[in-house]
């Protein structure tokens, strides 16, 4: 969350070679198939929407050549899911450590400081400030609690939009006998604000959640939302608590003999969420979970580090709904190529956006709970 110095940003930008290999999936690793990887560039077309071009826009903002927050500038800066595919490819092929998503978050924070924001993102901030959650939901949802061994951080989407995920996770936790609790006054983790450049408000949310967590004294925290997990890992101070994605925690419960899931004996495609895979490097754990419950993973053409984003992240679902839908439609087409209308994922945002494009999405927690 610390502001990058201009020198650091400009140095990073100057190292982009403009090869644009960041815009396609691993070519030789995909048996010489040309597979697009950058939703933003693919959808909008102009070079500004690809990483190399967006870097140059950032440079001109810092140099003062761009001094007006036009509608187009806001679209260039915020019309990107921050899926991180560009960085994944860049570090692979060039070994240049640019961390594009981080730089683009920095770009957004520079715009936010000048008040160049989307109304939709300002509304999220207002909702969070008013209600403590990103959806502005006022109802208080209660979750059972059985002890302080592990904290289940539910997150705004699994609490207020994709509630079946949190309900399934609670069933899994109950079945395992794990003594868990949900924060009595859980606030948004801060991710939607950090992703949209509104860092000041995020700081307040973080301070609140930290206070809540410290009072419990749990050893572990489990997350069904990779966005929350990423935010805790990257933007929270060390809480002395082990932070785990649901798949990692479920796998450990099974290996310790505390959870005995059944076998579904089906084959399903798995969609790698960007926050879980590229951002946190968790590719194997969800696949292992699926194996444990008898689901044979059908790999999509673009998978793991080469996965095509669901379209929802980085504030795109709220800011540019048509672009979010187009991105999801692309992924749904790929899912259907496997002959399936069902896909498994491990993120409430992915579930929501892909389902909006017409496929049935099961979260890992839902599938595990079905086997109990």
């Amino acid at each position, binding site marked *: 969350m610390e502001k990058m110095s201009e020198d650091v940003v400009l140095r990073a930008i*100057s*190292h982009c070679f403009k090869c644009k*290999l960041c815009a396609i999936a691993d*070519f*030789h690793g995909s048996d010489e198939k*040309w597979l697009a990887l950058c939703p933003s560039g693919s959808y909008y077309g102009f070079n500004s929407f690809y990483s190399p071009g967006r870097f140059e*826009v950032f440079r001109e903002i810092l140099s003062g050549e761009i001094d007006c927050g*036009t509608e187009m500038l806001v679209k260039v800066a915020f019309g990107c899911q921050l899926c991180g595919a560009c960085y994944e490819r860049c570090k692979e092929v*060039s*070994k240049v450590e640019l961390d594009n998503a981080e730089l683009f978050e920095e770009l957004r924070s520079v715009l936010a400081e000048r008040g160049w924001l989307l109304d939709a993102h300002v509304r999220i901030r207002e909702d969070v400030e008013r209600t403590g959650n990103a959806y502005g939901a006022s109802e208080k949802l209660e979750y059972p609690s059985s002890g302080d061994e592990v904290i289940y951080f539910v997150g705004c989407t699994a609490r207020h939009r994709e509630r079946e995920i949190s309900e399934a996770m609670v069933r899994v936790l109950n079945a395992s006998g794990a003594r868990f609790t949900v924060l009595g006054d859980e606030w948004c983790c801060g991710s939607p604000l950090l992703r949209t450049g509104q860092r000041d408000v995020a700081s307040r949310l973080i301070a609140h959640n930290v206070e809540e967590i410290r009072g419990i004294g749990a050893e572990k925290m489990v997350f069904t939302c990779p966005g929350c997990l990423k935010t805790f890992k990257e933007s929270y101070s060390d809480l002395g608590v082990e932070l785990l994605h649901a798949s990692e925690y479920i796998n450990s419960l099974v290996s310790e003999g505390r959870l005995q899931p059944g076998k579904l004996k089906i084959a399903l495609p798995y969609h790698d969420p960007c926050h879980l895979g590229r951002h946190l490097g968790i590719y194997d754990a969800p696949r292992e979970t699926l194996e444990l419950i008898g689901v044979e993973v059908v790999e999509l053409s673009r998978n793991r580090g080469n996965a095509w984003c669901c379209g929802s992240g980085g504030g795109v679902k709220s800011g540019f709904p048509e672009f979010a839908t187009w991105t999801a439609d692309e992924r749904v087409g790929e899912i259907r190529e496997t002959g399936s209308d069902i896909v498994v994922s491990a993120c409430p945002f992915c579930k929501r956006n892909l389902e909006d494009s017409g496929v049935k999405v099961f979260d890992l927690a839902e599938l595990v709970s079905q086997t109990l």
Partner: protein
Amino acid sequence: MTILEELERIVGRENVSGDPAITAAYSRDQHWTFVPPKNPAYVARPGTKEEIRDVLMLANRENAPVIPWSTGINIRGMTIPVADGTIMLDVSRLDRIVEVNHGMMTATIQPGVTFGMLVEETKKHGLRPAFPDAPLTVSAVTNNYLRGIYQTAPRDGLDHILSFEIILPNGETLQTGSRLLKRDLPYFRYGPGPEIASLFIAGPGTWGVVTELTLKLYRIFEHQKVYYVGFDDLEKPMGLLDRVNREELVSGCRFVDTIHWLPPYLGTFDYEYETLPEFVVVLVVENQDRIFQAQDHIVQTYIAESGGKILDLPQDLVDNLKCEMLGAETSPMIFGFKGNFYCVGYYGPLNLLPQYYRDFKENALEIGFEAEDISFYANTIARFHGQSTYYELEIYFDSSDKRSVEMLRTLHARTVANLLETGIYGWFRPYAGVIEPTLDRIGNFADYWKKLQNFIDPNGIMNPGKLF
């Protein structure tokens, strides 16, 4: 109507912008230490040939500079505007592979088609385009049109263009080669009259916009072997290089100086490169069954006689080269050493290799670069007439370090002057920093070049400032 309104009328509102948030992305490329950034006034993204024509006619009428831009993978500043009011003509929407003809061994493509797209499609036919050793994302039209493929393997020959279609600055469409007589027979370079197509090649968007190109394709062989032969002496490999090329035994032949160049090329930094010899010759042998074995036997014999040592590299590193021959993906890794990469590329005879190498290295060291920042390689190309060889003299540097940049500018000026003095065949394409001192040396050729350009583009709207 303003120019912006006219452009909107031609290509549609959603495909044109004059907003700096759009134009900034076309203002700078990796050659920015030599070509300063400048935004175009507008970016237009036509979707059809007719729209390209109409934009050119508009530009001609309004005397507005136009720069054709294909997929944007440009490292020589050739699409960076010089003049105010420039229209950047982003033709990446024209990305159709018009035809891959197995019988004719050709592909006809539009300028937005990348090498990756083309490789994917041609591979289905057991064919491939010539090996570009440029990122897979480059436009196959632009890369060929700007001077053929610059790192062609000896087997493939040098010039892969058969015919093309170009829209001239006045809006007229010109066909070349056999297209002139029958549009659906674009498979022969030489048409009914003088071969004027070559005049259009290697002009960086200065004589029109290429909208379609028919290219040669080449076989993908099942039998292929790659040798990495190490030498500790600069002169010693020369005999082997000459022999395998003269006798047409290899389809790929590359001399690298290095532990500096080889590691990134091979795809990993995780190797004990200090154990490698100073120079490495990479030979690719490929052919059909039985001919391959015979050829391979001869190559092995020649390697043994050369005094070089076949290196036992890990298989994944060797395999990486095979992949790269179907399109460069990991070779841009070189840029990761110091953050940036500089090179001067040119053609010259093989027998000058030792002199090119020594001069460049001495200059670079004298100017202050470290030995580990200096790199060099040579590829023999085409049939061996004139010992035709493509060279790259390279420096890894950090463009955010002002001292490095100043050193680089000094080295560049000295290198270009040295090469012109020593003797080269030509630059791999004309670009800023090499073309200016060259024009001074080519006498009346430069005058006729200008006259011809003036004839084609009397208003001087096409990418002004990039040549004259």
